[in-house]
């Protein structure tokens, strides 16, 4: 299945793009996707935290991804 990856902040710098269309295994969980991401981009491991959102809502590690979903990597936030 395909997901639309959206990246901000340092995650965008590490991957080198703000948007990417990715082919992943059907039914992949967020924590599995996170492992795949860290394996591909080892610099992600050095971050204080990595959270994920689907659309505009944070999702937990056990969230199951669906085809065509927009998955947003949320590196440590620093607003204010």
């Amino acid at each position, binding site marked *: 299945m395909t997901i639309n990856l*959206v990246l*901000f*902040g*340092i995650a965008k*710098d590490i991957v080198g793009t703000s948007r990417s269309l990715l082919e992943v295994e059907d039914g992949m969980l967020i924590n599995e996707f996170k492992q795949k991401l860290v394996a591909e981009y080892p610099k992600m491991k*050095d*971050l*204080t935290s990595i959270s994920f*959102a689907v*659309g*505009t*809502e944070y999702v937990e590690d056990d969230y199951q991804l669906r085809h065509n979903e927009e998955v*947003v990597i*949320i*590196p*440590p*936030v*620093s*607003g*204010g």
Partner: protein
Amino acid sequence: MVEITDKPIKIDEVIKSVTSENAGAIDVFIGTVRNKTKGKTVVKLDFEAYEPMAITEMQKIVNTAKQKWSIEKIAVVHRVGLLEIGDVPVVIAVSTPHRKDSFDACQFVIDTLKETVPIWKKEIFEDGEVWVSAHP
């Protein structure tokens, strides 16, 4: 009023938006860009937001605050883009019948915003740049 803007925040308008005849107090938090981080001179800050989600998360904070304290109105406005020293990236205003609630709620809003709202700032130094809080 819950907004993300790429223009200078009009502080007086944010305050005006929370005025209420039932309020005995308005507490205002104004975040400003500081010229140093850990002794290093900061030249500029670059703020980036995932806007639709930032608005959703800020609205959630406002709703939680309204459940915790007796609040008339709350305004939260965050700026994005390149900011210079002394510029204002965030303004929060809270009006309440009694002053203690306005102090407490305003502090809650800014503290929670810094933890949950998808906004990122990059500090730009004379000799490089760094995403704030990215690394332990």
